[in-house]
């Protein structure tokens, strides 16, 4: 299977793990369906929006076992190998904000990058990003620190009335 195109609503490794579990559940359903006695009622599994969208975007027919297996393998590879960015915010970001962020990350950093969201109240404004080997302070505090001379100049101007 060619590289899996991750939907913008698949954000974190937890989402990938959930998709994999859902696929396993779907496989189990089909196994059960083959083994059922004739005339017994079937309880169809309810697929999540994420799985549906992922299947649709990657042209995967979830009724086909081979497609499901390929999708499961691809998700497993992503779960194991895809780069994960840990981003901490001061408060829980909205889905819309996360979607905007993941689109930018996959467009600029890596097409299969995953984002793990954390909470860090001390960040206040901005975020704190951790990659496998580095940490990036993208908070307002760090930004103010970078522009300290300008800040000093502004404060000096405010004090001296300039």
């Amino acid at each position, binding site marked *: 299977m060619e590289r899996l195109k991750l939907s913008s609503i698949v954000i974190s490794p937890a989402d990938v793990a959930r998709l994999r579990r859902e696929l396993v559940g779907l496989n189990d359903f089909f196994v059960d369906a083959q083994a059922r006695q004739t005339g017994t009622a079937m309880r169809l599994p309810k697929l999540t929006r994420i799985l549906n969208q992922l299947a649709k975007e990657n042209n995967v027919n979830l009724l086909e076992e081979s497609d499901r297996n390929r999708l499961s393998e691809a998700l497993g590879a992503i779960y194991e190998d895809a780069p994960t960015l840990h981003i901490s915010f001061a408060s*829980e970001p909205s889905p819309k904000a996360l979607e905007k*962020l993941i689109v930018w990350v996959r467009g600029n*950093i890596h097409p299969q990058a995953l984002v793990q969201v954390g909470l860090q109240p001390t960040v206040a404004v*901005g975020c704190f990003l951790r990659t496998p080997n580095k940490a*990036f302070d*993208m908070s307002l505090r760090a930004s103010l620190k970078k522009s*300290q001379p300008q800040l000093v100049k502004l404060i000096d101007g405010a004090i001296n009335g300039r």
Partner: protein
Amino acid sequence: MNSGGLILIVGSLLATAVAFIWLAFKLENGGVGKPKAKGTQADQLGDAAKEDVEHIFNTEFREELRNRGRLHFEKILGENAMFLQQDLRQTTTQLNDYMRAEITRTLQEEFKKYEQSIVDAKQIALDSIEKTVATIEQQRQFLEQQMKSETDSQKDRLITRFENEMATIVNHYVLQAIGSQIDVTDQMDFILAEMQANKQAIVEDIKRGTT
């Protein structure tokens, strides 16, 4: 006149007075001796002469002579007493003058010494005060310099600390002011701009992490 001369004058006056007194006593007691007993011819002649003398110088005559002598003595005594009195008065006057002059001179010298002592003490006091003032001024300048240095140092420390913590302080104020009103969605432009600025580093780290 010095004290030696004064003592010489007083001594001579006393000697004169003693001489007069001695002479008066002598005259009073009769200066002629009593006739001695008969013995030799010479003694007899002597006695005869004495008798003649006594005959000539009988009691009245002797009394007359004595009176004259007494008067003369009294006159001389009076004159000498007057001279002595004059001398004594003069000496007393001189002594007074001398004593006055000496006392005045001594007092003037003492006053001069006293004045000099006062001037010296005053000068010493002034010097001491000047030294104290200079020391105090030095101490003041030293303290002023020390305080200024300490103040500058403290000021620099405060400024440095403020500058170091400025970002945190402003961040804290921003958080206090609008922290509860800012949503992550509103911050997204800022976050994406920051990520864009660090894009290269993030990509490189991810590539290094995946290889």
